[in-house]
């Protein structure tokens, strides 16, 4: 019974936080670009803006193009959002505050998060729009090639903490966070962050929904509630990535003076702001350069990091 309440709490919490993350991003991006950001709805800080967005997306007519393949078109958003929400089931929010304490936590997270790729390609192929198909191809290319460095670099904490269970990894880090291991920690963290950002289609890798070339990528035919799903999935994916980064490398809720929960929130907030900051200051790079970066740079780097982790463990 408590698991049910806990899971509903997590779901509501995630949706609420994601809604206000959109506001955070727009205010932060505004300040970065020396403008104010949304403030008209909910006067001083625009805190009602996410509610306005949600209502707008709910009320908007949900258009299904006549040419589209209806089954794939309707199922795609579901297949994109659900895996990301499943990831939150495994994440430990506190000492033993976790919905499902799987002892194969990391494997579960990596497996689930690659299902979004199927959803994205279904959306692209289902909407039968040339732009969407082109962007669907790109999404497949990019996400598969970044799956490999992501998996290998997230193996490093598993090796160091000798367990795939996320709570054990966090427990192991009470003495020193993995990121502070001499060369090993920083390299693994960088590879993990870069490939996680590529996984979540964020600048400078947001080639799939590149406005300047492909209008809106695979989301071009979606509107109304289905578009809200994609929107929600993107931010939830970013949130999941920052949670993962914090747990695997920055020692979860470990932290000297403050209570556990505050430390976790603070670290996730910092990682999230880092992703935003990178997003609003870099220019997008081309698809072939993205693939080259993944195979020629990140993949060998992650192998090296794995080797270092092995040596570190043996020694």
């Amino acid at each position, binding site marked *: 019974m408590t698991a049910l309440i806990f899971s509903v709490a997590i779901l509501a919490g995630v949706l609420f936080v994601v809604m206000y993350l959109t506001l955070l991003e727009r205010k932060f991006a505004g*300040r*970065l670009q*020396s403008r104010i950001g949304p403030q008209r709805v909910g006067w001083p800080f625009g805190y009602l803006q996410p509610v306005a967005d949600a209502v707008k997306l709910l009320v908007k007519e949900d258009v299904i193009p006549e040419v589209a393949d209806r089954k794939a078109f309707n199922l795609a958003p579901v297949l994109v959002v659900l895996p990301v929400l499943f990831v939150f089931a495994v994440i430990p929010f506190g000492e033993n505050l976790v919905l499902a304490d799987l002892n194969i936590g990391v494997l579960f997270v990596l497996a689930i998060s690659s299902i979004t790729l199927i959803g994205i390609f279904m959306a692209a192929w289902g909407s039968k729009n040339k732009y969407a198909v082109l962007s669907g191809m790109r999404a497949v290319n990019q996400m598969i090639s970044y799956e490999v460095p992501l998996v290998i670099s997230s193996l490093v904490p598993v090796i160091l903490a000798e367990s795939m269970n996320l709570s054990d990894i966090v427990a192991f880090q009470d003495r020193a966070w993995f990121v502070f291991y001499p060369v090993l920690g920083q390299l693994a963290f960088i590879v993990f962050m870069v490939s996680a950002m590529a996984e979540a289609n964020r600048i400078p890798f947001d080639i799939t929904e590149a406005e300047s070339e492909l209008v809106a990528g695979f989301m071009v035919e979606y509107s109304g509630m289905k578009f809200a799903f994609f929107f929600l999935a993107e931010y939830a994916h970013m949130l999941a990535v920052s949670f993962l980064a914090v747990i695997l490398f920055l020692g979860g809720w470990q932290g000297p003076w403050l209570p556990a929960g505050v430390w976790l929130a603070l670290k996730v907030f910092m990682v999230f702001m880092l992703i935003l*900051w990178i997003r*609003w*200051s*870099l220019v997008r790079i081309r698809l072939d350069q993205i693939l080259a970066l993944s195979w020629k740079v990140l993949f060998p780097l992650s192998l090296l990091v794995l080797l270092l982790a092995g040596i570190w463990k043996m020694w």
Partner: protein
Amino acid sequence: MAFIKEAWDVTRSVGQSMGVVFKNLLRKPTTVSYPYVKRELPDRQRATFALLTNKETGEEKCTACLICQNICPSQVISMVKEQVNNRGFAKEFTLDLGGCIFCEFCVQACPQDAIVMIKLWENSEVDREKLKLNKQNLLDNQKYQPSEMIGSKIREMQSPPKAAPKPAEPAP
């Protein structure tokens, strides 16, 4: 080695552009929240129009000499002339703001300085007919602050050198 140099080049330039972006985070935003904070306008603002009346005698300055009607490139001014005792009056004077290109030729050409541009620029309308300002609208627009550029001032500014080159305004 080239790989290390290239990696260093990447991190340096990524850090540099993120630094530039961060610098702006600390600066005050340049946008203002419009309806509550209005931008102050320079005194030569060219927005919509007003027909002036002579302060002492209280009658309109416009003597319907049709000069502005002829010079207007997009021919948006049209008026009906009537002769009252010794002076011409514009019985009707319509200026189609929708077609006007705000080139200020009419203000420059008006010998009586009757038409002037005013500092009201929030004059968008929902219905196009309201954009056709008739004489009454133009006379009511007098309550707004007129722009500094009235006909005679522009003509005096453009007077060619041979006409007794009087000292222009003190150089900035």
